């Protein structure tokens, strides 16, 4: 087991360079072999009667032509593959720039620190992806500019040290130029796969053409057409063999068919060979990036922890990725991938080395036992105790207490809950205490106060939209970092699509007992009958922002897994929650009740 990250880095760099050269050599060699095969088939069939079965070599002229064509093709595909990879990633994953919140500023600082650790080589920008899964990815363009994208979930769940280690891993790709190699590598092996798929799909297309192209001959017999010639013409040629040779036209068919079969098989084998090599390169790159990240941060333990947490959390099968994107992620987005298995198949076709191997290497470097990591991930499968239905439970009002609030470095108060609600500025990040001797705590950590935050008017100004149920004006409220609309009358909330994802990913708010009881009651009620999953009907409510068109929303449950009723507008993507529904959904989502 190698303990030194410099050794690992050197070894993997060598492996990557050799494999990359080999890949391009094999890629061009396969062109030659395919051309050679087709040439032999053609010549043998045409010259069979004269020379018998002979193996034809390529003349120098042929070799030069094929070399020229393959190089041009390779250059063109590489050139087009690298068109604005940063813009592509931004669009596909709906990335957004870092904002002023403390958490995202910490990410900006982390990226700056990592750039310093690489000796100030490289320009890197950080963006956030609006998904609650945990993953990070990095891309770079030809100019060496890099982009590091972190999901909301990763930003939320990883500590500063773990995030720094993971960002260093991604930065290693950009700085060492591996990200650029990755683009060309993935292009190289997709070409043969694409050719294979193209040829295989050609036959069904042709068959449908045949069906349409049927013509009826003059004597009533059905004749099929083939490139404009009728079968009658074929028959004439077949019936009259030429002197000293096989007739031309049936030869043509045989050549085409044989070449076609040969090409299909050849492309299939070629795509497998190039894929195996490309996957080997990808795995080496991941190992090397792990080693470089350790060299940069000198903190293999945090990197191991980051991998462990991500491996056992939701990693992003919701992310809009095609299969060619997987190598650029820190950890494979699909948990059932080869990366979690070991054995020969995973050795050949996995884009990342097995998670266990990565963690063990890093733990060995850190001289840390694997068991220490196990305490990091709380038990995800919680057993939900049976809670009696709502009617039997007594929800009492929280007792009135006196709170002081730290505002602009001065303690103001005492306030009771109603007065706290009425304060012009009161948000979860502010410090509160019961009396001067009490230890100040963040308002978000105090359970009693969390009920206030859904109802309080923080910014105080209206959204310009009105509540769908009671028609009062909706006010803008900052909730878990997102701006949502709250109705002062019925306490319903209006959230847009991206905001909802962010709210579900963040776990800042503490839920009151009332919410917890309601959520559990809802859960146990709905687990008894399953019809709510598929119930979808037109809502009596109109969408507040599309109201000028009198568009009604759709009333349905949030998803097949969560039985919370929402009203969703399919036009603008906004969701309306009645009172408490948003918190109940958050509670169920965060606790992964199953």
């Amino acid at each position, binding site marked *: 087991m190698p303990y030194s990250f410099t050794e690992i880095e050197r070894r993997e760099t060598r492996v990557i360079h050799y494999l990359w050269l080999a890949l391009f050599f094999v890629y061009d060699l396969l062109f030659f072999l395919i051309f050679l095969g087709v040439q032999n088939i053609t010549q043998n069939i045409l010259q069979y009667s004269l020379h018998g079965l002979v193996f034809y070599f390529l003349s120098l002229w042929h070799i030069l032509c094929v070399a020229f064509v393959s190089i041009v093709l390779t250059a063109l595909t590489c050139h087009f593959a690298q068109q604005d990879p940063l813009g592509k990633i931004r669009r596909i994953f709906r990335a957004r720039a870092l904002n002023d919140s*403390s958490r995202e*500023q*910490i990410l900006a*600082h*982390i990226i*700056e*620190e*990592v750039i*310093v*650790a*690489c*000796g*100030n080589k490289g320009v890197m920008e950080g963006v956030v992806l609006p998904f609650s899964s945990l993953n990070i990815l990095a891309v770079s363009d030809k100019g060496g500019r890099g982009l590091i994208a972190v999901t909301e979930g990763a930003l939320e769940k990883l500590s500063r040290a773990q995030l720094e280690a993971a960002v260093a891993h991604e930065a290693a790709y950009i700085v060492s130029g591996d990200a650029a190699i990755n683009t060309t590598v993935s292009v190289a092996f997709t070409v043969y796969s694409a050719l294979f798929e193209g040829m295989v799909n050609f036959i069904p297309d042709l068959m449908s053409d045949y069906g349409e192209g049927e013509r009826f001959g003059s004597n009533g017999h059905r004749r099929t057409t083939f490139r404009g010639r009728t079968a009658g013409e074929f028959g004439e040629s077949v019936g009259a063999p030429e002197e000293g040779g096989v007739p031309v036209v049936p030869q043509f068919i045989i050549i085409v068919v044989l070449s076609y079969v040969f090409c299909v098989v050849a492309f299939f084998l070629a795509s497998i060979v190039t894929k195996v090599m490309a996957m080997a390169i990808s795995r080496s790159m991941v190992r090397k990036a792990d080693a470089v990240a350790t*060299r*940069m941060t*000198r903190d293999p333990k945090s990197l191991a922890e980051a991998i462990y947490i991500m491996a056992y959390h939701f990693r992003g099968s919701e992310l809009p990725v095609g299969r060619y994107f997987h190598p650029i992620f820190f950890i494979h987005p699909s948990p059932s991938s080869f990366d979690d298995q070991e054995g020969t198949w995973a050795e050949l076709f996995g884009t990342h080395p097995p998670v266990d191997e990565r963690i063990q290497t890093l733990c060995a470097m850190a001289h840390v036992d694997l068991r220490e990591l196990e305490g990091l991930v709380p038990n995800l499968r919680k057993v939900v105790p049976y809670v009696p239905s709502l009617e039997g439970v007594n929800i009492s009002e929280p007792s009135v207490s006196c709170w002081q609030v*730290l505002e602009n*470095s001065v303690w103001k108060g005492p306030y009771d809950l109603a007065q706290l609600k009425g304060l012009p500025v009161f948000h979860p990040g502010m*410090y509160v205490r019961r009396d001067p001797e009490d*230890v*100040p705590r963040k308002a978000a950590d105090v359970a009693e106060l969390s009920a206030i935050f859904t109802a309080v008017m923080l910014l105080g100004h209206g959204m310009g939209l009105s509540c769908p149920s009671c028609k009062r004006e909706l006010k803008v409220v900052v909730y878990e970092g997102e701006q949502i609309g709250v109705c002062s009358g019925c306490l319903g909330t209006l959230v847009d699509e991206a905001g909802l994802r962010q709210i579900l990913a963040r776990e800042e708010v503490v839920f009151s007992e009332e919410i917890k009881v309601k959520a559990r009651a809802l859960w146990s009620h709905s687990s008894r009958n399953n019809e709510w999953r598929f119930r979808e009907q037109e809502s009596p409510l109109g969408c507040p922002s599309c109201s000028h068109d009198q568009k009604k929303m759709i009333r349905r449950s949030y998803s097949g897994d969560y039985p919370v009723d929402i009203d969703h507008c399919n036009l603008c993507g906004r969701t309306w929650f009645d009172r408490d529904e948003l918190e109940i959904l958050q509670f169920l989502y965060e606790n992964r009740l199953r």
Partner: protein
Amino acid sequence: MIALWIILGVIVLIVLMVIGIYNSLVQMRVGVQNAWSQIDVQLKRRHDLIPNLVETAKGYITHERGTLEAVIKARQMAVDASGIKDKLAAENMLTSTLRSLFAVSENYPNLKADQTMMRLMEELTTTENKIGFSRQFYNDEVGRYNASLQVFPNNMIAGQFSFKAADFFQLEDAAERKAPEVKF
């Protein structure tokens, strides 16, 4: 006749090798100097952040005058220091005074809660990390440079053109450093 050509070829090869090695040594030396200046950039950043920090803390920490004054003094010494040894000593001293200040501020939750203070602490944390990373990078560069000076055949060329080994950025002896006094 052929022997002459062979000898000429060998001489040309040797000359090319020498040029190549010399160039790589020069590049590494410049890399070391560059890495050193990067440390300076981060140190200066820290110097600029400290007055703000002290001002914010002053309002809350009324009983810990000594700690604050130690920080101010250490900062002034670090800004005035010249010569690498003095600089190293002054910067290490400043780091330890800051550490005492952070330890003291743990007892003042009001101070910790202040928004400006929280922002400043994060700025200082990231600056300390950057100083650490730039020192680490500098040491890595120095290690590579020194190793390539001593390897054969580079050592002959290094000796010929008087390339000198660079110093690592090290912590001073504990005895040389004066521990800051914290008065309660």
